[in-house]
């Protein structure tokens, strides 16, 4: 560590450049991880809010809530501690000034899908809704009357709840009767038992239903099957993993060049009896120091810049994930010192002193 730190102190510019590159790579990793978390939340936060074990959908729906159609009577086929019915519809809502893609959830007030209201009150009467508070940033407010793209019904915002987006769309919660009115219009009465799924809270996942037409899907599996969710997540994760590789390669190249420049010096040191182990450890320690500083700076810059981003940018920093990625970055960067270590071990002190 002594040799490593002394060299860094003496050659500040050189090592600042390496640290700067590592900082930029780590910043990108942290930012992408924030983006991945933010985009994931955008898709799943309303589902996470359910705090459920599984969802029951029809067998032929291919795990899609929107494509699942069942009768509320099928609740009798479910064996679970807690159940909650849900109807779901994608519509475009407008308050006259703004239009927004939204996801309409039809639920029963007394069941566990009912969200906590952060502003305003619960829906009590027909056509009242609780809205996700991200809609406030789009200009929606309490008391707004919303017209819908596919219905004559007008919905009134009576309350807001937080973290309620489903498949990237803000959710409007309403009762089942209003949901049926929006979805079926004049045929609402005939379809008053129609729902899309049944959400369950249960200790076990097995034997939730014996009905062959229904299937129980674990909540995480349900989320993974939300349209575009897995593809988006895989793409961003691939970029992050690629950046891990890049940081390792960058460090490997820089250190290798520096090591090659110091071959003669290392040779003399080896001739003097300083072991390859000591010299190799010094290079590894040096890499670790640079990687730690670069990663810490990247971490700090990511958090600072995240605080200044407009709300429209879906960045959400999960500090646990960031710390994990930080450690991975430091580990792969340090692994980049491997080639330098190999070079040091192979240095012949005899050549270094001109024998």
């Amino acid at each position, binding site marked *: 560590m002594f040799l490593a730190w002394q060299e860094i102190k003496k050659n500040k510019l050189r090592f600042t450049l390496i640290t700067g590159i590592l900082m930029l790579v780590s910043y990108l990793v942290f930012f992408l991880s924030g983006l991945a978390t933010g985009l994931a939340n955008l898709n799943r936060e309303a589902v996470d809010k359910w705090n459920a074990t599984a969802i029951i959908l029809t067998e032929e729906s291919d795990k899609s809530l929107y494509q699942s159609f069942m009768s509320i009577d099928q609740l009798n086929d479910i064996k679970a501690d807690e159940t909650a019915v849900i109807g779901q519809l994608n519509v475009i809502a407008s308050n006259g000034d703004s239009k927004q893609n939204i996801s309409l959830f039809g639920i029963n007030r007394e069941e566990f899908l009912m969200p906590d209201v952060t502003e305003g009150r619960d829906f009590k009467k027909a056509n009242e809704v609780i809205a996700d508070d991200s809609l406030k940033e789009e200009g929606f407010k309490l008391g707004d009357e919303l017209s819908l793209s596919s219905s004559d019904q007008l919905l009134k915002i009576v309350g807001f709840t937080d973290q309620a987006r489903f498949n990237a769309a803000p959710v409007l919660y309403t009762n089942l009767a209003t949901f049926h009115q929006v979805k079926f219009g004049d045929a609402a009465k005939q379809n008053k038992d129609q729902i899309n799924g049944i959400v369950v809270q249960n200790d076990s996942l097995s034997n939730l239903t014996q009905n062959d037409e229904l299937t129980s899907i674990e909540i995480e599996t349900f989320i993974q099957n939300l349209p575009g969710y897995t593809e988006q997540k895989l793409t961003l994760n691939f970029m992050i993993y690629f950046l891990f590789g890049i940081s390792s390669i960058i460090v490997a190249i820089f250190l290798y060049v520096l090591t090659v420049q110091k071959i003669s010096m290392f040779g003399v040191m080896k*001739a003097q009896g300083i072991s390859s182990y000591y010299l190799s450890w010094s290079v590894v320690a040096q890499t670790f120091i640079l990687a730690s500083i670069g990663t810490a700076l990247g971490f700090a810059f990511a958090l600072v810049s995240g605080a200044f981003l407009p709300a429209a940018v879906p960045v959400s920093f999960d500090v646990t994930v960031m710390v994990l990625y930080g450690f991975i970055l430091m580990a792969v960067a340090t692994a980049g010192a491997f080639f330098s270590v190999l070079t040091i071990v192979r240095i012949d002190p005899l050549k270094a002193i*001109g024998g």
Partner: protein
Amino acid sequence: MAVLELHQVKKSFGSGHKKVEALKETDFLANRGELIAIIGPSGSGKSTFLTIVGGLLSPTSGDVIINGENLTTLNEKARSQIRLREIGFVLQASNLIPFLSVANQLKLLDKVKKGNMSKVERNQLYEDLGIADLLMKYPSDLSGGERQRVAIAKALYSNPSIILADEPTASLDSDRAYEVMELLKKVTKQKKTTTIVVTHDIRLVDYCDKVYKMTDGVLSTALENHTRVQHMAYEGKI
């Protein structure tokens, strides 16, 4: 007392008709407190001799014994330990680490040698070599002579039995070269080390107790109590 002994040491490179005998069968003995010069032209085998003595190169045959320990029977790790403990190298200016101050050059040795030199001994060494004022300077701030004084301090750090100096004055002008040789002579006598200087600079032999000449891998017998004239006679120049 013999610190260094070479018995029937040979070193050849290559094989068959390409075989080169860099060092022919050599016997050599060096005692404590002796300053010895090995002179000879480039390619004569001086460096081969020095690297074998320093444990950097294994001889083809023969024994190299340092303080009773036979180097030729040891593996590289053990030889490296002997180098660290028993041998101090003085090379050309390149043996200073460019990013370490003079104080840190020595502190590094303190770390790898686990510090067997007391603070008093260390300060005495700085005084003896006239580097006390240079401790905070980097090699690039030092003159050639100052660099070699620091190099000698590094070699002497932790009290080695043997100092091996390979062309220690090669990059110095005459005054600086004599200054370095004076210093080597002084520390050899004061600290009772065995110092072997490999050089092709015959001006330096006046400082040495013994002079050997290396020609085509053959080490001559020692010339003791020589003078420059004796040396030149040996060279066949007068």
